[in-house]
């Protein structure tokens, strides 16, 4: 299978007034299309930083990042946003639903930004809500939902555009174990249908759903456990 993501010697620094933190230090690894990868490591080792760069939210300070065969390190904000909205879906630990929008409208949002026609939007949103079994809550506002339901909406929003890649940063971090398992189940199903999934987690249990675990320390990869 093709490599979807090729990362080589990736570097990222944060400069604050006094100190410079090395968040990523010559990190190198690949992710193939259709893979389900878990990233683990102690707090502060650079997992979120890595995910932000893969998600094209942030730009690395050094090294190379090839996404679908294109070098994207050094892309400007506009180009990254363009690539991002068509290819990548996000699931966050804190859900990040917009409180002022209903479930339906939250899920519809990515379609608006990718310019899908209103009639098609309706079809797509309903399809996804159906799949996530949250259709009956479509006119509720996020705060009227339980944590598990909110995360299902967030997943629905992440997949509504049929992205090739889903990035999840501790998607179960704010959920109890049963809701957490539901979400992992959803990600596995999506992966089975061909979507590549990269997930950051602190939970060995959740990591077992993946094909491969990348373990990080101080900004670089230390080991890799192949599960499948």
């Amino acid at each position, binding site marked *: 299978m093709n490599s979807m993501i090729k990362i080589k010697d990736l570097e990222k620094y944060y400069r604050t007034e006094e100190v410079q933190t090395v968040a990523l230090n010559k990190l190198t690894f690949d992710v193939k299309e259709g893979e389900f990868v878990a990233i683990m490591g102690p707090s502060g080792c650079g997992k979120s930083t890595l995910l932000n760069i893969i998600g094209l939210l942030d730009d690395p300070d050094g090294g190379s990042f090839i996404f679908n065969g294109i070098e994207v390190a050094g892309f400007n904000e506009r180009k990254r946003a363009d690539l991002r909205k*068509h290819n990548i879906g996000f699931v*966050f630990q*804190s859900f*990040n639903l917009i*409180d*002022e*929008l209903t479930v339906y409208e939250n899920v519809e*949002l*990515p379609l608006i*930004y990718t310019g899908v026609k209103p009639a098609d939007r309706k079809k797509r949103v309903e399809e996804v809500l159906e799949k996530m079994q949250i259709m009956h809550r479509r006119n509720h506002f996020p705060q009227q939902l339980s944590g598990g339901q909110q995360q299902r909406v967030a997943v629905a929003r992440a997949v509504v555009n049929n992205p090739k890649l889903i990035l999840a940063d501790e998607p179960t971090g704010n959920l109890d174990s049963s809701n957490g398992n539901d979400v992992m189940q959803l990600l596995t199903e999506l992966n089975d249908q061909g979507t590549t999934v990269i997930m950051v987690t602190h939970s060995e249990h959740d990591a077992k759903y993946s094909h491969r675990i990348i373990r990080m320390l101080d900004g670089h990869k230390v080991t890799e456990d192949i599960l499948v």
Partner: protein
Amino acid sequence: MVKNYIKTAWRNIRANKLFTVLNIVGLAIGLCVCIILFAFVYTELNFDNMYSNSENIYRVNMETSEEYDFEIWAELPNAVGPAIVKDIPEAKKMTRLIKDDFGVTASLKIGDKNYNENGLYLADSTIFSMFDFKFLEGNSKNAFLQPKSIVLSQSAKERFFGSKSAMGELITVNNRDTLQVSGIYADLPKNSVIDCDMVYNIKDSWMGTDVYWSNASYETYIQLQPNTTVAQIEDQATDLIDKYVDKDGQYFTKFFFQPLTKIHLYSANVQDGYSTRLGNINTIKSLLFLSLLILFIACINYMNLATANSRKRSKSIGVNKVLGANRGQMLSLFYVETAILVLFSVVVGYAISFLTLPLFRSITGNDINYHDLLATPILIGLLIIWGVITIVAGSYPAISMSSISPLLLVSKSKKKNSASEFVRKGLVVFQFSASIILIIAVTIILQQMTFIKNKNLGYNPNGVLAVSVKSAESRQQVRSLTQNLKRQMSIESVSAVQSMPGLNESGRSVRKLSTDVVGMPIKSCRTEGDIIETLKLNLLAGSKLPEVISEGDSIIYTLINEKIINYLDYKSPNDAIGKIINTELGGRAIITGVVANFNYNSVKEDIGGYMYYKSNKAPERVRALLIRYNTQNLPQFMGNLQKTFNENMPNTAFDYEFLDKHVAQLYASEEKTAHAVSVFSVLAIFIACLGLFGLAAFTAEQRTKEIGVRKVLGASVAGVTTLLSKDFLKLVCMAFILASPIAYWIMQNWLQDFTYRTPINWWVFVLAGIAAVFIALLTVSFQAIKAAIANPIKSLRTE
């Protein structure tokens, strides 16, 4: 997409009810003020542009010689107009315009009724075609065909004749001329400086037939051929002075052609002129500035509340960006949101402007009406205001908030946006500085007004009534009226005068030697009776004017002020008594008495030379009786007075004015400024407080958790209130420090206009500072106390 923006924006607006209401109220007030002012300014800027020849009509003004301080006068000799038309081919038409009897209220007799009239003019018949008079009856060509004809405006006709026809009716003016109505014209537009109620032919009077280059009393309008170079014509006109006037008589040296459309606003430096419809471009500029300032203060509220709220909004901005929104789309969203809010404010502001229009009129004395508010340019202006305010108020929040990074969602450190906090504080300081400057300005303006009102004028205008006797049919009438009045208990003194102080004196010169070419310009006023007693003048030397002068006495007895004494180099007033004085009055004039300088004019002006005189052969007539009275029952006194007047002068309208009111009138425009600035400052402070209230609510909300923790740890309500109010008070104090020197400088400049001015007291500043702090504290503490007394358990549960 747009539909989506509107939907989202609308939700956001509704989600923050408090901020929305504060913003709309503030903006609507600011906009209301602006709308009314724009309507006002629009009418002011469009004076006199409706005539078909507006562009080619000029008023001729002249510059006087050094002796008269190079003043610019709008009133010229009556020879100027005819000479210009005769000698300069480009000058096609001219009309001279003069108010009957040089501007004193005319007394009209129509049938058996007497009326007072302020708008009676004499003019050349060309006035009708130059100023597009629309005749409803009669016509412009024939109106002055018959001698002794008069034309009336529609409203004058209705006032005198009601619905009856007026054509051919007789009107007696000042018991002197009887004129026949020969036409009725539609009222002149209210944006015309020409404000004639009625016009008769100047050629029916000596004023039009005796053409001379000396007395300057006639406004002169010239219509030039289209596309003429005005500067050239001005030069040619100025050349006429040498051609027609010999060197000694040249007390004016230059003619200026003032475009008709500029007369209304740009005549502050021009003396005289008869129109009552004069504005001032500087007033307009300052009002506009103040209204824009208020609007800007309201815009600041929007900027501050919107960006203060940005932390709440940052999550949704971040999410939108993660999902693919670019910065432009976020910008549009914020602009749409601002636009919706401003649209509401414009609608509300426009609605309030209709409700508050009467208030505005009574405060400023302007006569704009509902119709002016509905004018198309105002409606277009509203659209423009909508756009401009959206951009002014919306840009800073839009730019600052749309740049929020999506990484904010994933980063754990919620760091403060210190740049926007700094801007926000700066803007609050600006708002309060402006408010404090306005408070200080109002206080000093009011102080100055009181100062002027209480200033010792050198005479006492209180308790003096001026009754017009200029239409008396004979001198005997005036004399017997005076005698009868003097008999009344409540009347202390009566003097007949040519003019009440500062109104219609004659301009003359006093010369040291009769051979001098240049002298000191003075005002001379003929009087009969004891003027010292009537006006309570301060006699320094000599005696009052003689009560009776024997039949053959040709001496002119004069009472002069110190200014003249100083000019004539007398060491002391006593030295001058009995001396001869050169006055241009003809005959032998001697100094009978010397009075202390008194402010016959506005105290804004310097005191010049002033002379009362009495003589058997006075060239001027007496026009008014000044009556010093002392009564507990004014209505009854006035009733008796009118009865006596009517018995003695049955054919004349009873026209009177209180001298103190007349004096107060001199400061009417300052009074108006004071009112306007007061209103503006109250509004500015109110709007600034709305913003502060919102910010305080925001801070309290943001610090709910902190407050909860502090309270759990034992902080008192007072302690928490202080904690929350402190920061805002710091800003207000900074504003005070910034505002004080600026206010001092502005008011120092404003006071320069007055010869007599109140000192600027330090306590005014302290007072303004305390007021601002107090108002701010009141505003902020409401929110602070609310947060402080809230149950901490409840506040800790949020988050």
